[in-house]
């Protein structure tokens, strides 16, 4: 296992370099001169040539592409992701703050998704082809088909406007967290529930479950001790993929609820061609994704020892 961890951490470096180089290149090739766009938005008028030259010199945008990237990478590896072209603020502390805001709703939303999806998925699998199963599958179809922002608007309309139970927007007070978390929870639960159902159903068909049943073990014992651990492997993969949406994936929810998260920050930066911010978010996303994959792989080995043995043999 130590070897696995070390191997993965070592692979982090080329992955980060490749991802950051790709995004840097794409930004460089995108239509629109970042200096001109940012100045024009700031000045509310086209910038003069002198202003453009001065701005580019101040932010190193007049240097060759490879030099710009090398300088950026050198600083990034020391934790300095540069300065925003738009606001002049350091990118790293702002991103960390915004990531915290996003995580504050994203992870509870994910936990809520799991709390909804897992029990329902298991029930649907156990009662396969029953009325309950059909009802749950129909409900999850609705959850998957209806986009997240629509769920958000519906919840705002019902709970904030009609019932006046909760605030429609805001940040800071405990009640402001509820609607974004519930929206994310509902949005993510549909897919997870269907995956759980399929996974549990597949394991329930296997011989060792029949053996366990024939030994006289109760349904609950079979589920908890034998079925779930085997069924969880694809579910963990799905959770991992869901978590990869943390950075930039909740932009619509953040916009709807005026939540000061990283998704909204990324959208604003992309529209402004604020290259340092975009690069910073890509860098952090890459880092997060690699570490997340490592965590998932470690979870596999915990859930299924056969995977650990196969890795050792490999």
């Amino acid at each position: 296992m130590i070897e696995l961890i070390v191997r993965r951490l070592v692979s982090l470096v080329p992955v980060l370099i490749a991802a950051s180089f790709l995004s840097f290149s794409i930004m460089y090739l995108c239509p629109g001169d970042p200096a001109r766009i940012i100045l024009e938005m700031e000045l509310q008028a086209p910038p003069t040539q002198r202003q453009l030259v001065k701005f580019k010199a101040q932010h190193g945008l007049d240097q060759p592409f490879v030099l710009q990237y090398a300088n950026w990478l050198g600083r990034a590896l020391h934790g300095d992701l540069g300065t925003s072209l738009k606001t002049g603020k350091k990118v790293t502390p702002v991103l960390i703050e915004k990531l915290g805001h996003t995580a504050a709703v994203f992870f509870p939303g994910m936990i809520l998704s799991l709390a909804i999806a897992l029990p329902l998925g298991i029930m649907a699998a156990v009662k396969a082809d029953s009325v309950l199963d059909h009802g749950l599958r129909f409900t999850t179809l609705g959850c998957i088909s209806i986009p997240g922002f629509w769920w958000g608007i519906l919840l705002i309309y019902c709970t904030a406007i009609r019932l006046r139970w909760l605030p429609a927007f805001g940040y800071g007070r405990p009640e402001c967290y509820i609607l974004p978390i519930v929206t994310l929870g509902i949005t993510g639960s549909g897919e997870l529930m269907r995956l759980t159902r399929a996974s549990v159903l597949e394991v329930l068909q296997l011989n060792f479950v029949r053996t366990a049943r024939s030994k006289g073990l109760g349904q609950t014992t079979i589920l908890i001790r034998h079925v779930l651990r085997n069924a969880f492997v694809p579910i963990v993969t799905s959770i991992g993929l869901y978590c990869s949406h943390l950075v930039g994936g909740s932009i619509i929810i953040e916009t709807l609820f005026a939540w000061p998260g990283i998704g909204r920050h990324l959208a604003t930066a992309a529209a402004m061609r604020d290259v340092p911010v975009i690069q910073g978010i890509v860098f952090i996303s890459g880092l997060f994704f690699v570490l997340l994959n490592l965590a998932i792989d470690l979870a596999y080995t915990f859930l299924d020892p056969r995977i650990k043995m196969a890795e050792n043999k490999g």
Partner: protein
Amino acid sequence: MNPYNRKNRFWKKLCQLFICFSVIFLFSSCGDSSDTRPGQAGPGKKAREITIAYGLDTDAQSIRNSGDMLLKIFATQRLVELEGTRVVPGLAESWDIIHNGETLIFHLRKGIYFSDGTPFNAEAVRFTFERLMAFNSSAWTETDRIRQIDVMDPYTLAFHYKDGMAGYIALTAFAEYGCGILSPHSVTPPGDPRAAIARFSGTGPWMVEAYQENQHTVFVPNLHYQGVRPILEKIIVKTIPKAEARVLAIQSGGVDVVIDYYHGGSAYTPRNMLKPLKDQGFQILKKQMPMTTYLVFNYKKAPWNRIKVRRAFNHAINKDDIAALFDGWINTARTSLFADSAPYIKDAGAAVIPFDRQRAVQLLQEANFPLKRPMELIAMGQNPDEVKLCEIIKAQLIKVGVDVQLDVLEPGGYLERTTKGTFDLRIYYVGGPERRKFTRMDGRFNPEASEFGDYGFFSDPAITPVLKKAVNSFDEQERKTNFHQFYKLVNDLAAGVPLYFNSVFVVCRPEIKGIHFISSEPRFDTAHWENLKNAE
């Protein structure tokens, strides 16, 4: 009964009950819209404060700028103000122009203090403008025209121009939003024009008590303000970028007021949401601006460099459809190029080219207009009204045989296309809020103005000298005469298609009174809750 069947029946009944309750819940939510009427102020809400939803951040702790327009209006004052077409004293009680416009001297009022208790003086004014110059701010059009600012005594300072003042327009520029005077102690270290703002301090009726970037700004009355003290004890300005989210916020009672961006060009409440809000019982306050939204041509390339083609497009657009699009909330430019508050427009006699589809078709034929090539109409995706407007225009142009390809772009892409001139038509606004009525006209039609850039709005050798005389002359009659000539030329040359006059809207709860407009700027110094006022 078989236990398995009993269990099955139980789950069936449970499912049926669940479906019934869901349907009841759904239908109960689709009730009478009058239930969304604004109720009493929510529990815990203090009756001497209001919460405003605003689409932008006030930038009260800016590193490079000096704050947003709302912040400037709430918390600062300027050396001069613009009333109609006249520059009137503000924080400066008088001014002198000497050495043929090379130097402009301001004589400042005495006995005025900033909200931080420090005195307003010439050093503070120099600090404010040196900060604008240090960051080449767009908030002031004279940024790159000033050679030096000298403090002659504590209440007198001189602006020395590099090539002399352009004229009257240079004086009006001191009334711009960005020229709100800032206390040098707003930054750390105090007096450093390049330092970040730590504690925003001005001489306006409000002061900043708290600020959280992209979330909220809290204003309380400025105890050092020389004018009438505001009635309210607190105003909380919440930053909610999305227009629909601002509407939901006021409907849910989370905010009491929704206001447009002060210059009227963006971050506004979409006009088709105003009627539902009014039906729900909210007040809709409206003030028209001297700003007109136009359909603009890429006049530098064919076929738009021909007057006949431009006139044809003027005839092709039916402005009644545009009024209907916005539920009648805006006034169309059917009889005049600009609203009445535009400089000297009232008796200018600049008639607008009327809607006449047949004439449009005829002119297009006479001009050999290339009907087979689709015309590229670009719109900024961020402005929902602009996109809808473009769709209406597209539908109308199809009726005269012009095929239009509508490209909805994000801001960067839009700027790219306008800078490179890779478009045929676009939506643009001419004129501006009252503070900018001179500078915006100049910036749109005068290629020598810094705001004009590569394209501006329209440029013609006949228009430029007339406009320059109009905005630069210190003689009122001369300004008026030249403005009349300017408007006539804009119309005769069919520079663009005037569509509608912009307005600033404020949506507020019915119990709130006293919000008034100075020019087209909503002010809250006399705002109050009606029931509280009556109780007093």
